[in-house]
């Protein structure tokens, strides 16, 4: 039997399998169990995220999940198909506004007809929202975003490389302008509008079939808080979309997309229709972006047009490059890293600040790094009042750390976190002959 030797493949099916070895299958099952136990708040296990993120750890982690779904999309477009896009935030926005138009509360359907008379006051405009349930708006948000992706994809045939990246920057600004033009969809330009909740309804009935926005018993079985319910829902959706993406990449389509990434002309010579697959790449990527955007809006409850900004797109590029472009595991690692690092830094700085008075082994470190902002107290991180000068608050340092990490990762580990993992794995695989 082949599974005794890790790298021996005896059939093509084996090579293309999601988890080629039993060890990997076992590890994934164990990891899944770990995530479930973590969500349930099991002792010892939930202490791990709590150490890094503090007692409200479930909020930043749940917030990350819809973004991870969107990140799967950018991986398919940039990592697998090789089309550089900085317009991912635009497609997320498209999905999110589809969700709010179909699922949000509002006036009659007439408000949904884009008719722009004049920039008037809020009370003069209707608000588009049909109040449909999640099983309608979620697929539609992906589908509409995919349609927008198909609409944009001809640009990828015309322009390539960095030119394409800048063209997609334009999309983000055009999206921002559309948000300002159509308040019947987007709500107030600054404070936005309310998104439909994640509750699962069959149609428009009063009590939802499955509750996601209140604490309480689920199916009469288990008492969960609102946050836990959302965590489980989004985690399950993410799991489903990961499997979908994984299957896509290892299918014929996935191989065609990769061929285009590696050399588009060569791919065409081999009989891969370049345009069709680029269009497909945009469509799939935008589908994921739309789903992620809709879920993110729904999880946060309220979004405004300015939230779908270029910085959000940049976040996704950072996720991809820090995690490792082209691999799903890498994308997930990147999402965790990019979205949670600022929270971890914030939380651990608070902890460090407590060590100043605690006088233990961490006190000198704390004294070196932190300043309370009073004169004579040195340290780059200001935990007191933000004062003029070159000491900055931990919040400002978070941005600096984020930027420096992007640079360091690209210089020292171009394959990202996934590359580091591969190195570690190979080291142990060859152990003790690890040279």
């Amino acid at each position, binding site marked *: 039997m082949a599974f005794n030797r890790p790298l021996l493949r005896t059939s093509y099916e084996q090579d293309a399998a999601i988890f080629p070895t039993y060890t990997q299958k076992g590890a994934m099952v164990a990891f899944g169990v770990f995530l479930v136990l973590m969500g349930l708040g099991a002792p010892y296990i939930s202490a791990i995220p709590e150490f890094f993120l*503090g*007692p*409200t750890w479930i*909020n*930043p982690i749940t*917030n990350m999940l819809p973004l991870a779904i969107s990140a799967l999309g950018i991986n398919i477009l940039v990592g697998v198909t090789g089309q550089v896009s900085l317009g991912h935030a635009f497609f997320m926005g498209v999905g999110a506004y589809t969700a709010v138009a179909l699922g*949000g*509360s*509002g006036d009659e359907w007439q408000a949904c007809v884009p008719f722009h008379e004049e*920039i008037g*006051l*809020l*009370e003069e405009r209707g*608000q588009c*929202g049909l109040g449909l349930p999640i099983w309608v708006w979620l697929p539609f948000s992906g589908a509409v975003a995919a349609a927008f992706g198909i609409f944009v994809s001809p640009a990828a045939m015309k322009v390539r490389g960095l030119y394409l990246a800048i063209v997609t920057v334009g999309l983000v600004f055009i999206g921002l*302008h559309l948000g*300002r033009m159509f*308040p019947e969809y987007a*709500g*107030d*330009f*600054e*404070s*936005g*509008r*309310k998104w439909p909740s994640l509750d699962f309804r069959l149609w428009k009935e009063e009590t939802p079939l499955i509750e996601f926005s209140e604490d309480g018993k689920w199916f009469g079985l288990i008492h969960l808080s609102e*946050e836990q319910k959302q965590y489980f829902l989004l985690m399950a959706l993410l799991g489903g979309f990961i499997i979908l993406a994984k299957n896509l990449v290892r299918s014929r389509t996935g191989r065609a997309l990769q061929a285009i990434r590696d050399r588009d002309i060569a791919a065409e010579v081999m009989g891969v229709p370049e345009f069709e697959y680029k269009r497909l790449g945009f469509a799939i990527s935008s589908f994921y972006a739309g789903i992620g955007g809709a879920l*993110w809006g729904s999880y*946060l*409850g*309220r*979004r*405004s047009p300015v*939230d779908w900004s270029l910085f959000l797109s940049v976040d996704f590029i950072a996720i991809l490059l820090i995690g490792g472009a082209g691999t799903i595991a890498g994308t997930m690692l990147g999402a965790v890293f990019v979205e949670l690092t600022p*929270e971890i830094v914030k939380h651990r700085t608070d902890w460090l600040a407590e060590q100043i008075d605690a006088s233990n082994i961490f006190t000198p470190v704390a004294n*070196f*790094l932190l*300043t309370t*902002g*009073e*004169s*004579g*107290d*040195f*340290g*780059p991180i200001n935990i007191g*009042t*933000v*004062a*003029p*000068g*070159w*000491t900055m*608050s931990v*919040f*400002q340092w978070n*941005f600096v750390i984020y930027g*420096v990490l992007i640079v*360091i990762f690209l210089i*020292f580990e171009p394959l990202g976190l996934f590359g580091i993992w591969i190195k570690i794995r190979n080291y142990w695989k060859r152990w003790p002959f690890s040279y």
Partner: protein
Amino acid sequence: MRRLKVFVALLLALSMLAAACGDDEDSSSGGDDGGSDTSDDSGDSGDSGDSGDSGDSGDSGGAEIATDFGVDAENKIIYVGINGDLTGPFASLVAEIVAAQEVYWEVFNGNGGYQGWTVEPVVLDSSYQTDIGIQNYETLAQESEDGVLMITENTGSPITAAIAEQAAEDNVLVIPLSWASLWPDPAFGSAILEKQTTYCVEAMNGVEWLYEKVQSEGLDPALAIIGRPGEYGEDGSVGAALAAEALGIPVVYDGTGAVAGDDRTAIISELVSSGATMVWVTLTPGELLDIFGNSVTQGLRAYWSGSSPSFNYLVHMPSDFAAEFSEYYFQSQYQAPWATPGIPGMEDIIAAMVEARPELNISDVFTTGWIEGIMAETLIRTAIDQGDLTRANMVAISQDPSFSVDFKGLSADQSWPQDYNEAVVRSSWIYDVDVSKFNLIPLADYTPENPGSTGLIPIEQDYIGSVAENFVFDGPCIETSG
């Protein structure tokens, strides 16, 4: 391995560099012994909220006071939350507001607190991004000992709108750093406790004041209104339009919601050719600088005023249009600026800030932080007197029509009746802008003879125009989007 070493060396070098760049000023006046001269003053501010009898609660101690979250009953510490913008577009002002509120609590605690209870602020940064703001709110509102009793500052309309409903559900009282006319509306968010007036009423007062000014100069009144899209901009613009209607002022240019994007060529040329003699703006400081500067350059001679956040002396005084601002612009505000004489609250601020934060510059917005502190302290004192330091009770107190706060002259005293029309504060302040008086000094250099000045001199304190006074509100000036 070599790479790792380089990496570590780089990190070390970075941190060394950063440490070397650290604050090396040496104006040490040091220790915060709590400004003893303010002790009796802060005692006063509690008297306004003495609905309970402090006689029996004196011996009760922490044991008999009901608490739920955000209160450490054992050590008698109350945690309050600040969800501020410390790295975003309003960081310069918010950092000073937060500093003032921190100093407020330092003084409060230094005087022994109230019946042994002290207050610790928990500061989080939203960077003015809604998703981070919501997460910060969740952190502050968590139902454990790590949560806070109430949120004493929440920066900005967008984030306040985003959390309003959840806050009402969680019973977390929130004092917003935003003056949108939505907040006094109980229907919008029953846990939002707005301080001072609204952008809408402010615009009514400002336009009426400009009207009198223009008439006294012998000019024909002709109003131009310019605003951003969104709640803030439309709120101010609607107020200005209502005032113009009530006073019969012709509106020669209506740029409500027009200032979007980076290019304002059209707005400027239409404004210049409109023949306006008075302009009301509801903008950001950068937008005002562009529109005002170019209009003045192209020959517009009109008197300007605008919603409070439009003008920021840190932005406008160092610009090349400072002289023109001095001549034509009048700043609308809600409270006393730095070193206004004859205001007891201001004396407290000066004494405490000079003592505790000598490295900061003088600032007008210390008043804002101080006012938030006074509001929260009054609430907390009332709650302790009632023996109930629970979140729900904080919300209940804020909804009690008899509850009122004395701002000690810093701003008009305020109470919060449930009826919108009664709840709206009608007064605002008007400042003259004078760049020749602008003298931004560090607090360490403060002396009573040379107090420094932000170049803003109040000419009307707690001004109530006839329009604002008589207007009957049946709700906010603008509606919220669902």
